């Protein structure tokens, strides 16, 4: 079974479309969305409706902090994020809100845990940015592998039988074997707002049978996505960072 993993789409229609098109040519059997469908970008309705359509056909989707913030304001957010969420709330209709309300914080499937931020306190949204937090996250579940997002920076952690943990910066389109003798925590980079100075959208494909994970960078029409943010009078920095990829 080949699973496509998407996270942190952030209302970026152009990036999501480019990734879904790429996945469409990649013999995908199953789609998993790891949260943060909205916020920052200018196309929340398109993104939520696209994810809803996939979920209707059997895809898995979990809740992200920006999605949760459309239901109840999150005072911990940055000014730009807060402003964008306030704007997003006005765009969404009752069916979209109802969909977001039904999303769960995590989902487990065949030894794989899908969660937006981390496994130990999924609703507290702490970032998995280093080995310590990664190991805390792996300790909190019996799943062999965790797939998450939230940091917008692709990263792969592996933990050995002796509990040693290491991190690795995955490269574009290199097949990485996730061997069964290790436990893995894969932070999938962001579809709609990459922050590793590479503006190309990021998603990943897991070949569950062959135990191979492949991160994929997809170039998309960044200029249009950035222009829409400006046209919607969202904070200008949100537009600029898409072009630079930070």
């Amino acid at each position, binding site marked *: 079974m080949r699973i496509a993993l998407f996270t942190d789409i952030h209302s970026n229609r152009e990036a999501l479309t480019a990734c879904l098109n790429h996945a469409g040519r990649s013999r995908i059997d199953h789609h998993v969305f790891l949260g943060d469908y909205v916020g920052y970008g200018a196309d929340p309705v398109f993104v939520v409706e696209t994810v809803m359509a996939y979920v209707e056909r059997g895809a898995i989707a979990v809740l992200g902090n920006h999605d949760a913030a459309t239901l109840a304001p999150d005072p911990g957010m940055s000014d730009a994020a807060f402003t964008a969420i306030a704007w997003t709330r006005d765009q969404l209709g009752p069916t979209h809100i109802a969909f977001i309300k039904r999303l769960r914080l995590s989902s487990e499937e065949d030894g794989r845990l899908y969660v937006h931020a981390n496994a130990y306190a999924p609703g507290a949204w702490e970032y998995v940015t280093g080995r310590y937090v990664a190991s805390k996250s792996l300790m909190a579940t019996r799943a062999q592998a965790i797939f998450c997002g939230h940091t917008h920076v692709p990263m792969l952690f*592996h933990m*050995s039988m002796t509990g*040693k943990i*290491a991190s690795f910066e995955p490269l574009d389109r290199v097949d990485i*074997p996730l061997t*069964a*003798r290790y436990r893995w925590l894969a932070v999938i980079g962001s579809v709609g707002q990459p922050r590793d100075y590479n503006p190309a959208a990021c998603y990943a494909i897991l070949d569950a049978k062959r135990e191979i994970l492949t991160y994929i960078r997809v170039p998309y029409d960044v200029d249009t996505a950035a222009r829409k943010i400006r046209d919607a009078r969202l904070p200008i920095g949100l537009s600029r960072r898409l072009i630079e990829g930070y």
Partner: protein
Amino acid sequence: MAAHDLTVGQVIDGFRLDAALDPGGMANFWRVSRVAPAAADADRAQFPLMMKVPLLRRGEDPITIVGFEVEETILARLTGSHVPRFVTAGDFEKPYIVMEFVAGRSLKGLLEETPLPPEEVAAIGAKIAFALHDVHRQHVIHLDLKPSNVIVRDDGGAVLIDFGLSRHDQLPDLVAEEFEGAVGTGPYIAPEQALGDRSDPRSDIFSLGVILYFLATGERPFGEPQREAEWRRRLWRDPQPPRWWNKKVPPWLQEIILRCLEIRPADRYASAAQLAFDLQHPAEVALTRRAERRKRDGIATVAMRWFRTRNAQPRRRKSVAGQLWRAPIITAAVDLSPEAEPLAEALALAVGRLLATEPDARVTCVNVLKAARLTLDPLEDAEGRNPHLQRLIELKHWARRLAAAGNRVTYHVFESTDPASAIIEFARNIQADHIVVGARGSSTLRRYLGSVSARVVAEAPCTVTVVRKPH
């Protein structure tokens, strides 16, 4: 499945165990064959097979298992004649790897016969260097290169085995995290590897230097240190020069060996292909003070190095293939005929530009003496002129600006009835990365004789840049 429970005739996942091979420290080895009917195998490549089964002590032994995991992952990705062909591997419950059984001679057997004659050391060394280069190009550093991990095939080339401590620079490094500190084999480990740096392909060049030293002198340059703390000694203590042990080691070979054994990776050969080139062309080796050394450094120098390196830390990760890209071998095919002078000028400019961006590159300048038949022209011989030498002088003159800029440049004049083939064959032999060749443009001559540059472009094994003379 425990390694020691296996018996001859047993069948594992379609492979029958035919005979036990010599066991290693971490695994047992079996000659195996497929039990499937021959018809089903007809489309598969036919080559002898062996199975490697890890020896697991008391259940799961992390050291053995990590090495096994790494070898399976890396071997499955490597291709080419310098590694055993990977066939399949067992699963979590039943670990094994089935791979090509390489018929040949282990380099370990040769150690009994040391010291070997210099030509033989160079020939074996070049084979191993080409094998290393092939593996480096595929993003892998071996990191445990030693005689028992090299097999020389019956038909010639070297094969590297045992990738259990290796590193693939595009994959997570399972070894580094499992063993804190350095991993390797005492006599062969490179200084930076002894510090825990597992990211530099030039660590393999150091280990090959240890092998060459051993083959040329019968001695190990750093002895046989067992403890990790002793491995660090080579960060400040240089070995006796090979000629200290064996006067028959020529200066060019000492130069090559000591350059491989430099403490700083940047002072070694920039790529295994560049090392192979020197081993294949002893007369072209640029001799430095290394070649003249009669004994190792005095206590003051060593103390100074110790003071500088005693608290040394490993450097940051870099890319294996990136190191190779910075160190290409460029072949400049130069036409020295008078009418081609503006073209030769443009060619020198083009090569100069390449060198400006690739600091570790080296240039091999080639000129082909076109012989009507494969003998020297008797008229010129009668006048006492040596056309070969004359061409060499002209070639060096052409390359003067490149060489003056401090680049590594060598000169090669061939006689051939077929210049294009001579250039292509030379580039293939030295595994050149890039050929720069001039095109004369249209001329009546070319219409009849065919274009050298067009054939080089069509048949060369590497990138080709065609230079035209400016209008």
